[in-house]
């Protein structure tokens, strides 16, 4: 058996997992399933692409770093893209979600996110058309690393980036004041206010963090696959499934859920064919809902 699928699965899993962190935080802190999260990914990727283009126009062609397919402009653009995506999420919350939230109807907020998702995605199609775009056309040589597995330098860099971001997010959630406040609001918003936590500040932190990680996940898809307006929407089901599999509210759970789904997808491609890939998350989602709806690291709702 070819073990190459392990690398593919880990990569797909990283993208899903990074996206699922945002889904799980929005779900546990703001208490709604955000159907627009996939479109944050796509918008972040296009924003990054646009900044790369702008940098290219200003300083000309930049040589890639080492064996990677991209140079410093992409790294700078990614940081700018993360900020922009976070701000976009904040803006959407200000004009839409927060107003509906204050009426106390959680499912209306879900519906609004569905409408917003449709509008955001179509707006991307309008601006950039549905033709795929790429960060780089360069073809990378995959290096053999043993066990019949080959990886490209980009893939290694992105796996390392994922590991660093996940560790940083986890530390932030457990060791910092903001992280503790986020946990507090997700466990009991009324008590959080009594304790002196500014819930509005926590909401802002949640959107910024979720948006930034969605942008990173999107750019990973962009580097390894391609950039399309639908790229985020197509990731929505795997991200939801990962968040639920990991247990709503759990950052490590979302990442582990993402990796499991990524590996399962890659294995499924080997056994039943690539066209059924999207069904894998659904099967896992249904299994979790029937067997253990609180997920791997979840706790029973109060």
């Amino acid at each position, binding site marked *: 058996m070819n073990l190459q699928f392990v690398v593919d699965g880990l990569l797909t899993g990283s993208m899903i997992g990074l996206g699922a962190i945002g889904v799980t935080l929005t779900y546990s802190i703001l208490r709604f399933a955000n159907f627009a999260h996939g479109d944050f990914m796509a918008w972040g990727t296009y924003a990054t692409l646009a900044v790369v283009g702008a940098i290219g126009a200003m300083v000309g062609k930049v040589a890639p770093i080492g064996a990677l397919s991209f140079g410093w402009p992409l790294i700078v653009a990614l940081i700018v893209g993360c900020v922009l995506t976070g701000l976009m999420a904040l803006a959407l919350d200000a004009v839409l979600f927060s107003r509906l939230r204050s009426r*106390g109807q*959680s*499912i209306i907020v879900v*519906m609004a996110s569905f409408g917003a998702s449709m*509008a955001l995605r179509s707006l991307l199609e309008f601006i950039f*058309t*549905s033709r795929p775009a790429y960060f780089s056309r360069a073809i990378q040589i995959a290096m053999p690393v043993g066990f019949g597995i080959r990886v490209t330098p980009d893939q290694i860099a992105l796996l390392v980036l994922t590991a660093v971001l996940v560790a940083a997010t986890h530390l932030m959630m457990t060791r910092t004041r903001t992280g503790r406040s986020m946990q507090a609001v997700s466990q009991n918003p009324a008590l959080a206010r009594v304790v002196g936590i500014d819930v*509005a500040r926590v909401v802002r932190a949640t959107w910024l963090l979720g948006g930034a990680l969605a942008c990173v996940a999107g750019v990973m898809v962009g580097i390894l696959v391609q950039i399309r307006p639908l790229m985020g929407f197509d990731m929505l089901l795997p991200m939801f499934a990962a968040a639920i599999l990991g247990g709503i509210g759990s950052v490590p759970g979302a990442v582990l859920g993402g990796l499991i789904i990524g590996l399962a997808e890659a294995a499924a491609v080997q056994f039943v064919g690539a066209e059924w890939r999207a069904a894998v998350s659904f099967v896992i989602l*249904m299994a979790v809902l029937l067997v253990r709806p609180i997920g791997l690291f979840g706790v029973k709702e109060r």
Partner: protein
Amino acid sequence: MIDLIGYGAFFLINALIFALITLGLNLQWGLTGLFNVGVAGFVAIGAYVSALLTTPDDPARFGGFDLPILIGWAVAMAASSLAAAVTGFATLRLRSDYLAITTFGVAVVVQLVALNAQSLTGGAFGIGFIPRPFAGLAENPLAFNLSNLAVVAAVTLVAWLALEHLSRSPWGRVLKALREDERAAVSLGKSARFYRIQAFAVGGALMGLAGAVQAHFIGFIAPDNYAPMLTFQIWVMLIVGGSGSNLGAVVGAVLVWAIWAGSGAATAAFFPPEQQARAASLQIVAIGVMLCLILLFRPSGLFGDRPFRRRLGLKARKPLETP
């Protein structure tokens, strides 16, 4: 003049098929408070089941069985309602968001099957030669459209009357009570869940029926017809009309379809061919923004019953409030 009547009939047939789906969604959402983001999936199941049963034998795929159209419709309803019941069974003991996510997944998978299970669904090319009611009249488009309109209108009317009756029955009152307090609905346990599954299944049956009716009117189906776009359109129709009201569901469907078809015709007339795909995406943006604006400023739509009351129970799981 004749052309105009013919087009009017054609327009109304399409609008009423949407109305039928919207009525199903109104039973699920408006009356019962169940959030279905996979409407297109349940419509597709009905369309494909009926097509498989009624098309002439095709060596390239499973079936068809050349059965009468009415049998196709009946089995389509049964199949979609079964799919809805299973979905409901898996998720209705959980929070409403889980149902939303799961139905979304159902639609994704149904589309995947339609696209890839070539030997069952004909793959990307879909299924053709679906028998059309009054096919003998096809020589005369006006007569064909009018007679089909009569059938679709009759089906919609029967569905409406049945739903009106149901919503006033004790069954409907239980559903409304459960809708008002999700927490009570969950804590009431099995019986409450069973009521909600029933409502979800009946709504699914209507969606399946609408899918079948549409397939037989057009005579041809393909996976693209059942994209998430369809779900979105139906939601806009229900919200514009006003959720909770069957009249609103029908009026909303006709109105939004008129806007949709009208703006589609306008983009076709005013944009050069190579720009039309882009213009079409702008049309979707406009409808998406419209949905959000209605939710913000007129959540009860045109004819909606009272908007959901805010639940005051301290423990009711509300969305996060930011002061």
